[in-house]
């Protein structure tokens, strides 16, 4: 009886939860609104909340003046490429550790986790110099490579925890039936692993899309993804708020949608399976 939710209680908790939810979401909402204002209105005091002259010209200007699509394409290639390559390397590794564990599997997993702990700034100097001498600075391939390595431990870990959940009986049955490892991988495991693969893909796309240490330090213009592109709005003081907001809204919208789909996996992926 005590747990039975009374109408009053639901009303109160609903009101409070919505209040805090809106409060936390507000900066994003405010940015979205500003992207439809003129520069003057975006800067105006007192601010206008809904009754301003709505315009989409900022979006057009962002594309015309700074070739937004070029940077968006860079983001897609860098985030997508690094995630796909990481998956290609990680799938066999995670499969092997999940289904043919040895005594050292645990140590290998923990060691992989520990490589993720290395602060990127600790290796900034050598990476920068190596990239400089190989002409990889401001190149998409260079960023694909470094983001792939940076996220590889998380990808392997996530896949490992998902593969672990696939019942072993099915594998043994397949082996009894004389399936080779290749066939086992393609016909038995892959279909069962697809949900896990999809969420790993999603989470790592998000992480790579938002990565802002290597992208800021290793790209300037040609290969600059959206993180670096947006950062370029920090130099001219003020007065470009509407355009900053338009560019920002475009940059976060796709990832916000993906992110909302992958909330559950987010917890799992970022805690290395420690919280589920």
């Amino acid at each position, binding site marked *: 009886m*005590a747990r039975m*939710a009374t109408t009053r209680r639901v009303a109160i*908790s*609903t009101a409070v*939860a*919505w209040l*805090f*939810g809106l409060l*936390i*979401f507000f*900066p*994003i909402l405010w*940015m979205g609104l500003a992207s439809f204002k003129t520069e003057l209105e*975006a800067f*105006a*005091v007192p601010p206008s909340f809904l009754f301003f002259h709505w315009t989409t010209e900022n979006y057009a200007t962002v594309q015309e003046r700074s070739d937004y699509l070029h940077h968006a394409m860079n983001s897609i290639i860098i985030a997508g490429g690094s995630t796909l390559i990481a998956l290609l390397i990680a799938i066999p590794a995670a499969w*092997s*550790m999940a289904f043919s*564990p*040895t005594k050292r599997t645990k140590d*290998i997993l*923990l060691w*992989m*986790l*520990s*490589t*993720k*702990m290395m*602060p*990127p*700034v*600790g*290796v*900034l100097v*050598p990476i*920068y*110099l190596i990239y400089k001498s190989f002409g990889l600075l401001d190149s998409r391939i260079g960023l694909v490579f470094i983001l792939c*390595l940076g996220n590889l431990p998380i990808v392997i870990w996530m896949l490992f925890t998902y593969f*672990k959940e696939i019942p072993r009986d099915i594998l*043994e049955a397949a*082996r009894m039936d004389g399936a080779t490892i290749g066939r086992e991988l393609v016909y038995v495991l892959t279909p069962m692993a697809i949900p896990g693969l999809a969420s790993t893909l999603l989470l790592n796309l998000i992480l790579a899309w*938002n990565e*802002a240490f290597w992208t*800021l330090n290793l790209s300037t213009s040609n290969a600059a993804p*959206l*993180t*670096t592109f*947006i*950062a370029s709005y920090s130099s001219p003081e*003020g007065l470009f708020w509407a355009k*900053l907001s338009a560019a*920002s809204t475009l940059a*976060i919208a796709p*990832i*916000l949608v993906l*992110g909302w789909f992958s909330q559950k996996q987010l917890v799992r992926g*970022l805690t290395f*399976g*420690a*919280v589920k």
Partner: protein
Amino acid sequence: MAAFFFPAEEKPVATRQTQFLARSLLSPAVGLLFIWMIVPLALTIYFSTLHYSLLDPGSESFVGLENFRYFLTDPAFLASLQNTLVLVGSVLALTILLGIPLALLMDQPVIGRNFVRLMVIAPFFVMPTVSALVWKNLLMHPVSGLFAWLASLFGLTPIDWFNDVPLFAVILIVTWQWLPFATLILLTALQSLDEEQKEAAEMDGASAVSTFIYITLPHLARPITVVILIETIFLLTVFAEIFVTTGGGPGLQTTNIAFLIYSQALIQFDVGSASAGGLVAVVIANIVAFFLVRIVGRNLEA
């Protein structure tokens, strides 16, 4: 949950052939990560013993531990170490102290709970350069920012965030980014809490407060630890937020270790000193990592 990995009864059924295959499937990943970890780290160690400035090429010479002495005794190091600790400590405290009530709130029967959840989680998916610039300009600008307008509504003097309290401004932005993470993890943990246990406690006449203290909080101990450790690893290397808002200033007021090393490497082009600093950062991160790996490792055991 602990028995999830490597259940005790599990015996490898693999033959020698499959074992060989398993190993060869694993080796590319292990090899790549090994190179990724060893090569740059070895180079960092090597550079840290050199006098090596990109502005003065060809003058490299072995100086032993001179760079470390320089880096560690530089007043900028102490200032940035202090800023790092304040930043990490404040964001941790804020995200957990706000995250617990928020998670408890979202665990209540709320109409439209899924939608509220989406709003609360959203900041985590915003790229750091966007959140930093939106906060700095649209919200915290001393004249035209929304906060300034709100302050004037209440007859207060608007705060010039990035001049008067620059580190606090950065802390607020980073807290906004990480609050969803803490909340989401705590909420996930709350939802796995046994309802019956709570019900039994309430039947026994336990008040909401004592149910929270004796049942909910102990249940949250582990997820809180995980939040602390994982956030610490990311917060030690906060970079983009400082890069686009303050550039480490005014003075050194918002320079953390990561930003200090960056500025020595790519602004002053002092490779030797930046490398020494990089190693210091690695050591600090490793102290945290040591504890995290132990906690996760305990989880791996049957």
